[in-house]
């Protein structure tokens, strides 16, 4: 299916949010995710299924003042 991840199209073969983060090969520490503008708690990542054209925003913690 095709998702929209951080405003870019992304071809995805898994099912859940956990699968997506694994496919992106990104750390999950300090990360937050919103799907269609709703924040998904970490405890729900494994059971949150993605669908065609889901708008996914992934945020990471970085240095800042």
């Amino acid at each position, binding site marked *: 299916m095709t998702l929209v991840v951080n405003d870019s199209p992304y071809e995805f073969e898994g099912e859940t949010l956990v699968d997506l983060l694994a496919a992106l090969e990104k750390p999950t520490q300090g990360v937050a995710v919103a799907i269609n503008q709703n924040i998904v708690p970490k405890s729900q990542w494994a059971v949150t299924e993605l669908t065609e054209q889901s708008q996914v925003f992934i*945020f*990471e913690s970085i240095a800042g003042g």
Partner: protein
Amino acid sequence: MSSLMIAGHEFHSRLFTGTGKYANAESMMASLIASESELVTLSLRRMDLQNKTDNILEPLQKHGMKLLPNTSGARTAKEAIFASELAREALETHWIKLEIHPDPRYLMPDGMETLMAAEALVKKGFVVMPYVHADPVLCKRLEEVGCQCVMPLGSPIGSNMGLASRPFLDMIIEQSRVPVIVDAGIGAPSDAALALEMGADAVLVNTAMAVAQQPETMAKAFKLAVDAGRMAYESGLSKQQSSHNMQAQASSPLTDFIGTLT
């Protein structure tokens, strides 16, 4: 020196620090450790999917530093509330440094949006630390809606101009019943010492440490300055004369030697 309590959390260091602008993660960690800071700020941004990002979280947590995410990038109360909720998920903390600056040129905080966001976030259970202009009325309003401290600016972010807002900081410190943390513009350890001497409860320093030629040594200098300022405040500074009544007060007895020479 007394410790500082914010929302039931005890801080032994009155130097809060930002993690931005360091040349690399090693320099940042060495400086933060030298500063003995116990509260460090972080930002959130959309994940860069192409490039690898330095993992700074692990070393910060390993050294027991409390993380304070900020809402930098938010231009409205609505965006700041969303950013706060994201930060709570990402970093598992309900502490938030609330900053809303719609104007990228001066990065002046928007007082009205900040007050609206603060009230909503307090109701959602956040410990709200609002970054605001040195506005005594606004600081009082933020205290009234339940902010656990106020963070008025000394001068514009990253400007190193020191306590340009000094007269207004004095008013805020005098009136506030929550801790006052002077944030932004602190360019030199002497600025930090002055803020603490004036009775500010803490300062937040980032640029002045991060862009120093030797950040680790500068961090130590800030630690010493903050301690010195607090010690001076707690031991009772003697009053400065106002400029329109500038008259010396002798610190030695004025012995009348002339009178004895006849």
